[in-house]
């Protein structure tokens, strides 16, 4: 363990952090929206919609993300003339966009299952109470169903976000130099696997600790009704 080498390694790896964060944030956002649509399709759609969502989830959860990335990045390159004609080649030749597409489609499958569980946690009484107050349609959705469902889904969704941060490492295999990509390059150049591993591991761990701390704060804020009530101060009248 050479501290100077580790400090130099840290500075190099930190250069990959923006790309790691960018990949994770973008794909969680896109995948979250897609996942929500899939969950709603599975719950409210007809038979074809339900079958489509079930097949989608089966395919994307049942095969490795790395193969999905390869299929999109290398596999679609085979249809270059057709993609050029459609104007999609500009996106699909970029490893960055291929990684974003694969990560988003993958996390959408997991998110849709998590969100579907959240929606199923909304009880019929809560919906009836909303209707009794005169809410319906979008208002009921926005004020009653969504808050309850999202709150219920948050712990599992938090895990999925952390898994996505780890999954961005796979983008390094299609030449994107994020933290793991830079670490792999450094290890191959210097053969000091342990030191580089420790520094890269520390970066991911601090990132994931920060994330899980933020998520637990959010969960705490969103569930005031589940906390024990604060004991009120006894009212002492000075004149009694």
């Amino acid at each position, binding site marked *: 363990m050479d501290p100077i080498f580790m400090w130099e390694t840290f500075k190099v790896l930190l250069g990959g952090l923006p790309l790691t964060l960018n990949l994770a944030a973008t794909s969680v956002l896109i995948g979250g929206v897609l996942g929500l649509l899939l969950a709603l399709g599975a719950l409210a759609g007809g038979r074809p919609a339900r079958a489509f969502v079930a097949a989608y989830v*089966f*395919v994307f*959860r*049942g*095969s*490795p*993300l*790395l*193969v*999905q990335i*390869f*299929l999109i990045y*290398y*596999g*679609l*390159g*085979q*249809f270059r003339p057709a993609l050029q004609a459609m104007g999609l080649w500009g996106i699909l030749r970029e490893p960055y966009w291929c990684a974003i597409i694969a990560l988003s489609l993958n996390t959408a499958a997991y998110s849709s299952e998590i969100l579907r569980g959240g929606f199923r946690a909304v009880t019929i009484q809560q919906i009836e109470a909303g209707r009794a107050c005169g809410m319906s349609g979008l208002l009921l959705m926005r004020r009653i169903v969504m808050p309850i469902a999202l709150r219920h889904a948050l712990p599992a969704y938090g895990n999925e976000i*952390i898994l996505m941060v*780890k*999954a*961005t*490492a*796979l983008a*390094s*295999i299609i030449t994107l130099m994020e933290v*793991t990509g830079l*670490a*792999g390059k450094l*290890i*191959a150049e210097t*053969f000091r*696997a*342990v030191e580089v*591993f420790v520094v*890269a*591991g520390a970066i*991911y*761990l601090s990132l*994931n*600790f920060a994330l899980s701390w933020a998520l637990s704060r959010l969960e705490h804020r969103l569930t005031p009704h589940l906390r024990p009530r604060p004991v009120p101060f006894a009212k002492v009248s000075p004149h009694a």
Partner: protein
Amino acid sequence: MEALRAYLALVGFGENGWGKALLTATAMTCAVAVAGFLTGSIIGTLVAWAKLSRSPLLRGFGTTYTTVLRGIPDLLVIYLLYFGGSAALGTVAGFFSSDGFIGMPAFVTGMLAIGIVSGAYQAEVLRGAFLATPRGEIEAAKAVGMRAGTMLRRIVAPLVLRLALPGLGNTWQLVLKETALISVTGLVELLRQSQIAAGSTRRPFEFYFTAILLYLAITWVSTLLFRRAEDRTMRGLRRAA
């Protein structure tokens, strides 16, 4: 129809087909997954035991192990083992005056990497299952005078395994998908074989598509097997629904 016939010739078992190579590679994927999962079971049992122990030192070790290995990308662990292991092997070989790079055997790297990472997940599953076993059963075993070893074999292990089976099934699916990452060490498993075939035929789409189908087949079969195992371990239990 013509496209389908061309595809089937490409991945089939004919003269220029890659079918045999792909099936061999699928077997390799299963082999490295099973070896890694079993290694992970041993590590997971030890780590779960450490996390449940009374010693703060062991508990601290267990917590650090599960937190670190679940918080960093698997690819980093593979790089560490592959390059770190090769460097260590090179040093050992240096004593015997051999020189040059000695590659860590890819299968061993894969097995260890999967074992080390899935050990962290299995430890959490086993710990949760142990905490969920009814205390009364263990007290009853003590009351009839069972020794620790007998109690572990007859009472604790069957109860823990029954409760842990769904969680272990999830971990197995993670392990199966993680084997794809081992392709970076050059082990010719399903993904690496598909890469080789894609490179040599310039038909990447067909081969990665086939790889996905084969992975889906493995995960589907293992889901069925785990479901049957769960049903079997639940024999003799009344269910709520």
